[in-house]
């Protein structure tokens, strides 16, 4: 096998992995991305005296197919989610964003906590008619919060008849607050960078 064939095979392998990693995108978007990345690789390596070395460089600058796909998916989801009020879409986006860095990870934890609390509060409102005196905002030896204590007689329930309205308000404000905070974080985000420099910045030497 010639060197040119080996290089072409490496390009095909990269594109195959990228195709696999982009499966969750719309087919038209996926095809467009694949075509653009392929064209970029081919043009960047065409005419190079050492095509294999040129390919090494361009693949390094693109990142692994999985990393590149993650960036595309995150950018696509972040754009949609920053305009959306769907907690499910925002949560999914934060999960994808978390794979790209610290800020995304923070956003994911905020989403899990905020939506988790809102979901828990909502569930407790629906359970209240069935579990009556056992579900409430308790404090005592078994803990503090919305719990179903094993021994209610040893615990103190704080909200009484206000349980449902207070929890409904809390669920609403947590859901809306989490959504607005995450939408703001998504709009204010800055793109992640694939490192370019092989040498440190002048002041870092």
């Amino acid at each position, binding site marked *: 096998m010639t060197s040119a064939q080996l290089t072409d095979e490496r390009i095909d392998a990269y594109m195959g992995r990228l195709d696999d990693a982009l499966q969750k995108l719309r087919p038209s978007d996926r095809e467009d991305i694949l075509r653009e990345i392929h064209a970029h690789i081919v043009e*960047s390596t065409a005419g190079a005296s050492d095509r294999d070395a040129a390919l090494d460089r361009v693949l390094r600058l693109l990142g692994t197919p999985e*990393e590149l796909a993650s960036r595309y998916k995150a*950018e696509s989801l972040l754009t949609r989610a920053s305009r959306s009020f769907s907690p499910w879409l925002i949560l999914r986006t934060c999960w994808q964003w978390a794979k790209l860095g610290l800020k995304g990870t923070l956003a994911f934890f905020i989403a899990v906590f905020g939506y988790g609390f809102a979901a828990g509060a909502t569930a407790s409102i629906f359970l209240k008619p069935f579990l009556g005196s056992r579900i409430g905002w308790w404090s005592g030896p078994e803990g503090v919060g919305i719990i179903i204590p094993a021994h209610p007689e040893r615990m103190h329930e704080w909200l009484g008849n206000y349980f449902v309205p207070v929890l409904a308000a809390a669920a609403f404000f947590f859901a809306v607050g989490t959504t607005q905070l995450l939408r703001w974080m998504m709009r204010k985000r800055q793109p992640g960078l*694939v490192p370019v420099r092989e040498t*440190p910045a002048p*002041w*870092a030497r």
Partner: protein
Amino acid sequence: MNSNGDRGQNWEAQLRKGCLEMAILASLWHTRLYGLEILRCLSEKSDLDVAEGTLYPILSRLKSEGLLESEWVEAEAGHPRKYYWLTGAGRARAKDMATAWNEFAGKLAVLVQPVAGGTQR
């Protein structure tokens, strides 16, 4: 590498991140360009070395936000090229960003001028 070096690199990376979107939009102000040309333009005109893995997802997002439009063109060299250009909304965003940048950079330049010039107290 010392911690000052780490912080310096981190600061530089943050600065580049913040400018990237504006730089991409600015590179398309006068003409339509394809990905490789945008990379060269950023590198040659602003010393902003952007990796391909950074640029293409951002171009895709700017397009989905309605700031860019694109078209595939069969080039003479045989490689198809996806050309990008600014939409009306993209031009407006680029102008807003450039105005904000000029105001900020102008004021900051006054502040850092003694530092850069090495003026002693």
